[in-house]
């Protein structure tokens, strides 16, 4: 036992060294015309060694440290708590949700435009993560190319507007539907593959879509992207200074208020909020429906599920398609928010971030996913000065999470179904 943990601790320390030294210590420097690899200065070497030492000590006494942390009541308020009865819990959750939604509705009127804009981005990621949660958390399919469906939604709106002048509200269902169709077409051949292969193929698919967007210059403008994507209108009202589209009217003229640049941003935020709520509610219902139960059944025990007549392909395909649908949804909102999109917005890192949100949030739990989306998108913004170490902090957080709480921030809790007892 002791030698085992010693070995393990040594291993972790060496891995830390191997990862940290090149990231922090080595630098590509331009000297004249040539690029040279510069070694680390002493301070960095010392700090990397110190970090490795910390990892070593922590891993060596991991059980003792984690054990004492877990039992310390001040650090873990949930340590000896009884689970709440179901009806009480659900009532609390409903109240919390209502308070949250009301707060989210009035909050943007009191803060800066930048904050509202960031919040809209968070809402887009919430939609994405809730959708991917269906695929990864509920159905247990590792999809590394989820960003492709996001791109399909965004580009559908951009192209439909560019060529046919289609508005946001028409593009929204079309983009989501098209993303879902892509999900269906890709899923059909691919879902026969298991775990790792599925991950690799979806990863490839994500890249293919991005490369296609990059290279089909005649259609998509390639790396230059597509601009001039309009904001959503509400009952034919536009929120810009001047009306752009024929037949629309301007919000500030109708209501006779002074024009303000924040109208547009707040409206977009509110629309994103409504759509995110819609996404959450629809997916929540799915989980209580036959389709949601079959996703979980297949994840729990595929052989048993098949022996009861569930078709693996059909069940997986439904999860994949529904996940893709909501990515398309989010993509349309994203295109509208940015007003300009290019393939650069849909790189693999995006898939990784969305996946990280799902994993942090606790595979399957909606509230957890929402919290994680807020954390993953907002924290890096707050920690701008540490931006160099962003990915490092991000990675460290993920590793810690996996060690400490592999079930995520808020693991999924099952909702019990009441059964009528027959006498």
């Amino acid at each position, binding site marked *: 036992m002791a030698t085992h943990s010693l070995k393990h601790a040594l291993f972790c320390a060496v891995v830390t060294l191997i990862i940290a030294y090149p990231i922090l210590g080595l630098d590509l420097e331009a000297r004249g015309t040539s690029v040279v690899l510069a070694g680390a200065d002493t301070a960095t070497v010392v700090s990397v060694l110190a970090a490795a030492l910390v990892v070593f000590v922590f891993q060596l006494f991991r059980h003792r440290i984690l054990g004492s942390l877990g039992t310390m009541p001040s650090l873990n308020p949930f340590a000896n708590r009884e689970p709440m009865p179901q009806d009480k819990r659900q009532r609390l959750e409903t109240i919390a949700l209502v308070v949250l939604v009301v707060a989210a509705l009035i909050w943007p009127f009191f803060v800066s435009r930048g904050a509202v804009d960031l919040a809209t981005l968070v809402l887009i990621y919430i939609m994405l993560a809730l959708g991917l949660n269906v695929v990864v958390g509920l159905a247990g399919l590792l999809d590394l190319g989820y960003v492709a469906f996001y791109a399909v939604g965004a580009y559908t709106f951009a192209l439909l507007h560019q060529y046919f002048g289609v508005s946001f509200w028409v593009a929204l269902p079309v983009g989501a539907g098209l993303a879902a169709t892509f999900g269906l077409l890709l899923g059909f051949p691919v879902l026969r593959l298991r775990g790792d292969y599925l991950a690799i193929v979806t990863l490839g698919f994500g890249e293919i879509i991005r490369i296609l967007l990059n290279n089909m210059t005649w259609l998509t403008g390639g790396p230059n992207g597509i601009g001039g994507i309009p904001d959503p209108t509400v009952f034919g009202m536009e929120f810009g200074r001047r009306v752009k589209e024929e037949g629309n009217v301007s919000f500030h003229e109708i209501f006779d208020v002074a024009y303000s640049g924040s109208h547009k941003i707040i409206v977009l935020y509110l629309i994103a909020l409504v759509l995110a709520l819609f996404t959450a509610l629809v997916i929540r219902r799915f989980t209580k429906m*036959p*389709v949601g139960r079959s996703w*979980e059944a297949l994840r*729990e025990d595929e052989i048993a599920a098949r*022996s*009861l*007549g*569930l078709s693996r392909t059909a069940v997986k395909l439904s999860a994949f398609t529904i996940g893709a649908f909501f990515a398309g949804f989010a993509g349309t909102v994203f295109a509208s928010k940015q007003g300009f999109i290019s393939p650069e917005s849909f790189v693999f890192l995006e898939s990784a971030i969305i996946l990280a949100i799902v994993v942090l949030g606790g595979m399957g739990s909606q509230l957890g996913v929402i919290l994680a989306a807020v954390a993953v998108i907002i924290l890096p913004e707050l920690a701008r000065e540490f931006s160099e170490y962003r990915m490092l902090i991000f990675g460290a957080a993920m590793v810690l999470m996996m060690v400490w709480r592999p079930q995520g921030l808020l693991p999924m809790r099952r909702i019990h179904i009441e059964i009528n007892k027959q006498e």
Partner: protein
Amino acid sequence: MLEVRNLSMRFGGLLAVDQVSLDVQEREIVSIIGPNGAGKTTVFNCMSGFYRPTGGTILFEGREIQGKPDFRISRLGLVRTFQHVRLFSKMTVVENLLVAQHRHLNTNLIAGLLRTPSYRQREQQALDRAAYWLDRVGLLDMANREAGNLAYGQQRRLEIARCMVTEPKLLMLDEPAAGLNPAETRDLNQLIIGLKEDYNVSVVLIEHDMSLVMEISDRINVINQGRPLASGTPDEVRQNDDVIKAYLGEA
């Protein structure tokens, strides 16, 4: 209703099942017995579509089903349990039974989102059927427990209930008594007889302990090292010389 003819299954160099034949009539309990490794589970796996047999035919209600996908065979009414219990262990007991009833439910997504009357009615019927079967196997009080937290014997009964809510015509049980104590085994035998009498299902039962199946089986097939050794009524099998030599003799 079920006719297995000269079924063979080869794994590389190993002939796990060699020319096994089997007949099951309506409302009949037929047992397959044989020592460990005789090939009983493999016969089941071929019948339920988990393996594609390398030889022979399987007719169910006159249709050839060998090599069909497992979920299609299950939908025809041939449903099985597993030698090592396979429940959806993180789901609750009722949910296990609801999953199994997917074909009786309204799976239209729009109907479910809108909770149409037809959707709710089907959902309620499924819950009622689940409650009925839980009551039947004595698990009603456990309805909202996680299936994985049930005691072993309860898990076995839940697995059988989960088959029964699909309203099968033929139930295949792979060593359902394994790991049960004598009292539980007696209850299980009563349950199996009840299934036949009250719900008109036929049962194919795998056991490796011969004495267990003697009283409830209409007919027994003995296989040994993949080959059929004997078949007939319990009395015929009990008096068969080959069986006594190869099987009872060693005990």
